[in-house]
């Protein structure tokens, strides 16, 4: 029996947890068949934890976050369990989800403009959530918004109140969006590639800010950039084709990588110092088509360690050391990626 099938029984385990996801599957019906965007993911988030989720496009990392918010596109078929402080969110109505969204669980995106209304002044957008969820008075909401602008290090917060999004730089907009997300004091902040569209010096500022803000909320940050995760997260998951292929504490995962895909991702990063390879180690082939996944391990067609068993069934996510899980049949040493 696969780990994904066994998983739902563990649901009660995360009583102290903030978020417990078990056997989550998200599928869409398309012209070319069922597209399995998320395919049996388990995830636990403790209060105050900073979790990184790494994956390329099509890995299911964004769909995973959207499921927690109940914001998957219409037609998504969702199975499994997502519990927030024990409360089941899968199948919960819009009334329940609406009361949590923004209030208890907030989300920020790659492009801050997707979350900002270009026609409204910053002040109104910042205080909207507070007035809606907590019925705060105009002056109380304003006080709180100014506090938050200060917390995200926005200079001259009073002046920003009257400004429109287009008057601000990209980095400033992302700070505003983060302030907006935190204004109702949510327990969980979901961040989808929050620094990808920013310049590298501004990215460093926003990452420093997120490290500071983790005292306010547990954070799940999704990115394609392993460097970003190394900078901020305590623990990380690596996703490929809708599944978690490796999970461990960040130090452990970087020092004792056990999955060939994680190894390949790490090896393809060009270091900024030290010896420079003549050729970059690269993963052959292309990321898989989620509408036409192979029957076995989805990474097998690109894997340097593939053997006959890999085609049988997807390998289950199983422990290789305390707190370190991976989904792979190959048990020998890595180091073959050149």
């Amino acid at each position, binding site marked *: 029996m696969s780990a994904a099938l066994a998983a739902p029984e563990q649901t009660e385990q995360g009583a102290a947890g903030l978020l417990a996801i078990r056997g989550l599957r998200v599928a869409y019906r398309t012209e070319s068949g069922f597209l399995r965007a998320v395919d049996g993911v388990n995830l636990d988030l403790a209060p105050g934890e900073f979790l990184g989720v790494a994956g*390329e*496009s099509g890995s299911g990392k964004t769909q995973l976050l959207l499921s927690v918010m109940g914001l998957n596109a219409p037609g998504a078929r969702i199975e499994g369990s997502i519990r927030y402080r024990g409360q089941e969110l899968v199948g919960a109505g819009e009334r329940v989800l609406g009361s949590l969204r923004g209030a208890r669980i907030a989300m920020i995106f790659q492009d801050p403009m997707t979350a900002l209304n270009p026609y409204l002044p910053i002040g109104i957008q910042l205080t909207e959530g507070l007035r809606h969820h907590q019925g705060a008075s105009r002056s109380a909401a304003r006080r709180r918004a100014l506090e938050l602008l200060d917390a995200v290090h926005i200079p001259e917060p009073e002046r920003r109140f009257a400004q429109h999004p287009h008057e601000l*730089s*990209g*980095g*400033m907009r992302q700070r505003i969006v983060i302030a907006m997300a935190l204004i109702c004091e949510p327990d969980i902040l979901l961040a989808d590639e929050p620094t990808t569209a920013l*310049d*590298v*010096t*501004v*990215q*460093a*500022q926003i*990452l*420093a800010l997120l*490290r500071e803000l983790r005292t306010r909320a547990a954070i799940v940050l999704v990115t*394609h*950039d*392993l*460097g*970003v995760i*190394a*900078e901020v997260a305590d623990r990380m998951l690596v996703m490929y084709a809708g599944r978690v292929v490796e999970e461990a504490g*960040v*130090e452990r995962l*970087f020092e004792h990588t056990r999955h060939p895909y994680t190894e*390949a*991702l*790490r090896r*393809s*990063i*060009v*270091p*900024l*110092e030290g010896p*420079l*390879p003549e*050729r*970059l*180690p*690269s*993963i*052959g082939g*292309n*990321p898989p088509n989620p509408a036409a996944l192979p029957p076995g391990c989805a990474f097998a067609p*690109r894997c340097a360690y593939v053997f006959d068993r890999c085609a049988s069934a997807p390998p289950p996510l199983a422990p290789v050391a305390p707190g370190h899980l991976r989904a792979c049949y190959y048990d020998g040493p890595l180091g073959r990626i050149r």
Partner: protein
Amino acid sequence: MSVPPDGMAGTPALAVSDLAVRFAVSGPKRWLQAVDGVSFTVERGQTLGVVGESGSGKSTIARALLRLVPATAGTARFRGVDLLALEGPTLRAMREHFQIIFQDPLASLDPRMSVAEIIEEPLREFRPALDRAARRGKVLAMLDRVGLASAHLNRFPHEFSGGQAQRIGIARALMLQPELLVCDEPISALDVSIKSQIANLLKDLQLEFGITVLFIAHDLAAVRFSCDRILVLYLGRVMEIAPRTALFETPRHPYTRALLQSVPVADPALARSRRTAPLGGEIPSPLAPPSGCVFRTRCPFAGPICGEQVPRLRPVGASLVACHRAEELG
């Protein structure tokens, strides 16, 4: 003006001098100075990286050289002529010698043309003497060289992944064996696992064809792998030009240092030792650039002189640096 003989050994393949580009902005007499007095050379068969953040003017330099936007001032010597002064048929004839690869491979390919038509088009334009069979032979050879198969010939761009589409763009750009290739963020839009494939391919092809490359990028890691020399731009001005090793091992300009320190490193222990961001603030508006050194408003080492005088590019160690205080910083 004397014209150096083409192909003479020691002549740079491209020599850009005092390039300036400004755009009119709505409002009375308002200008946006996108590129301001930029000079550099690229030796034959070498790759010059041009790095900078958004608004640095790196793409504008590429566009000006390709004559997609007009330069306000400056010259660009290439094959014995000033690229920026060419017009009409002479400009058109020169185009076979310089080609470009764009960031978004899908957006740069005509969705109504098959792969065969896309790659063949430069031959139809510039090699009219070739017959159909000869053209097809060249197309197939190039397709194979960039790692695509003949089965791809009759497909359309939307049927390809980002990495494959970039291979098509590379094949099209190399079809005429250009002398100069401008790569504008050629791998930034690609998935992590695909980036290294395309970076390797570009490097192999450059060596094989002996092409001179101008590699525009914001990704310092990609630049370290792909470039022999690197030019660092900030707000339209050159901050530093240095050979690769010097730039990464002994960066001289405070901005270069900050850029290198800002890149997230995939090493948790090292990452955790650097808690604060190396630079505050953001790039100022090019409509109102700071006086003196344009970087001084964010520079941790700025002194009074930095607001008064524009620093000239001058040699320090193996680099050319535009900083009044480069020596003091060591």
